[in-house]
């Protein structure tokens, strides 16, 4: 429910409107595959950036309805196919939102696997139950009819856009912005001066919520925004 006590916050016009976009992804099967953790490490070094994106950012969207136990494909594979719970936990702790480039995300994944194999050398060549097949995401950005000139319109649009649009602006955005932020926060701060609200959105935990939960939390937080 939008507070009626501070209507100016909700109706004040932004100099530039927020245009909601969305993105659509097609999966390409890559040449790399791994039958062991050692092979995974090799493939992580050579696979295209789009594979890193697919198995971290994009898989989060494909499994957006799960609240627990799923964070990225590498962690899932380490746990279910390699039975390496320690490695899986460390990989699962990666929060894609702390990375503003796929190169730095790749480095972090490689570092975790290297470190684990240094202390667990017997795990390097142990055959996995099922191979890890590398895929890559080919993306197309789609404009949607939704745009917002003020906070009230922004909240209304948030209620109506697809969850793909939420993922596009709230999670994928940092790769475009090269900032530890998201499109929503950037617009709220720059165009409406809502610095506190903008910062608070970045604290939403995307790993323990579904994307619908994220949508609801965004709406709830912005509905109680103060100038």
């Amino acid at each position, binding site marked *: 429910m939008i507070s009626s006590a501070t209507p100016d916050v909700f109706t004040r016009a932004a100099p530039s409107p927020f245009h909601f976009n969305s993105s659509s992804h097609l999966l*390409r099967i890559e040449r790399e595959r791994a039958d062991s953790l050692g092979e995974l490490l090799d493939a992580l070094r050579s696979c295209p950036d789009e594979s890193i994106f697919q198995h971290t950012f994009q898989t989060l969207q494909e499994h957006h309805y799960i609240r627990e136990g799923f964070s990225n494909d590498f962690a899932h594979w380490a746990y279910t196919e390699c039975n390496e719970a320690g490695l899986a936990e460390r990989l699962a702790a990666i929060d894609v939102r702390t990375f503003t480039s796929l190169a730095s995300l790749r480095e972090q994944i490689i570092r975790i696997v290297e470190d684990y194999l240094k202390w667990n050398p017997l795990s390097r060549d142990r055959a996995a139950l099922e191979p890890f097949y590398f895929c890559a995401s080919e993306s197309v950005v789609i404009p949607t009819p939704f745009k917002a000139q003020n906070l009230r319109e922004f909240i209304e649009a948030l209620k109506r856009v*697809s969850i793909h649009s939420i993922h596009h602006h709230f999670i994928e955005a940092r790769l475009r912005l090269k900032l530890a932020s998201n499109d929503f926060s950037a617009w709220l701060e720059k165009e409406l001066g809502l610095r506190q609200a903008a910062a608070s959105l970045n604290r939403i935990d995307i790993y323990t919520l579904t994307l619908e939960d994220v949508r609801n939390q965004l709406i709830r937080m912005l509905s109680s925004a103060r100038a």
Partner: protein
Amino acid sequence: MSETQNSGNISSVAETASPSAEHNGVGGSSTISVEPEPATAVPKRERRKQPRISDTPPMAPPPPRLDDYEPIIGKPELDELRFLATVLKGKSVKMVNSTAVGGGVAEMLNRLVPLMAELDVTTHWDVITGGNDFFEITKAFHNALHGGSYELSRQAQEAFLATNEQNRQRMAFEEDVIVIHDPQPAALVSSKKDHPGKWVWRCHIDLSNPNPGVWGFLRPMIDQYDAAIFSSPKFARQLAIPQYLFYPCIDPLSEKNKELDESYIQKVCDDFGVDRSRPIVTQISRFDRLKDPVGVVQAYKMARNYVDCQLVLAGGGASDDPEGAVVLKEVQEAAGDDPDIILLELPPWSALEINALQRASTLIVQKSLKEGFGLTVTEALWKSKPTIAGAVGGIPTQVIHKLTGVLVHSVEGCAYQIRYLLTHPEFAKQLGKNGHEHVKENLLMTTNVRRWVLLFRILLGLA
């Protein structure tokens, strides 16, 4: 539910064992096989009535329109799909496969072609023709590509190429994108040099372990395409051309998957003697050893030591397949005189009845030992059913262990999961809910339409 779709001549019901003492008046597990003959000599039973399944396939309902999917996937999703397709307006596509009716590919094309037309992407669908010798060869190819042994003769190669050439001569390839489905028409790609369109090979079969002779024969043809599509990364081969991943999909508005009236579900259960006041564990599958129906009976019997439930095994394949009949007999023997094991041999046009049985079930099992993608799992997940499935083929793509269902590797594991899920209904309910969302996001017909549109945009440089 619609009487007209299921009435008609009442089929005969042959029960090879007596129905339940507890629930049907007489002891013993039972098999109901529905055959296309009028019922005459079947004794009337108190609980188990004669299934009212038509002896001929019912008329197919008209295909859904895009708007019909809005209540399922939401308006924003549908709008995005329409927007994605706008740049393809005026473009044309040709789909070529080897059969107009029967089989998953024809079923998918029957839905896809009108939906693409609604998006203003003109889509032509051509079917190749050939003699019995050609289709015998392509059936042998199919089995060989799945890993079966086969001696590829010069004669078979020539017959395959000759039939493809005859079809190539009578077909025009003027569309912007030509999609060839499966190996049968693969050699049509020799027309590529005369036409500027993009050529795509959509492989619906598992090529993970192909017969080297047959694959060696087909490979040079496949390399001429601009792209290939597989149903799973594990089904793909190393190719020089880009390969894309299209999961198989289900249509939520088909007879097999659409919402049903509660009264119809109840009627089907009454007809088949399924007691809805007690837990129902169901496997829908052909009577085929690779679906391990005997293993399911064993798992059920182990679980029954701890929990009360009934087992429904429903499927076809026993009347038109000698091996299916043998497997059904093995299942009957394994079932013994248990009145709570209900074996149903259904004709291929029993989609509504299968839908009702799935919806009536407490748990769905798909304990396959080998599997393609496993669309019966997709159907179960779509109906929000807690699902226990063998960790084979494409099933782990759908069933993420303990998140969207549970994976099992043995009879014992299956028995344990039946016990666990029947005694932990909240956890089971969450699995079902996640499974439904997983299908909605990744495995519906509308998702595949989106994939096709994206692929056409990428191939035509419109991404």
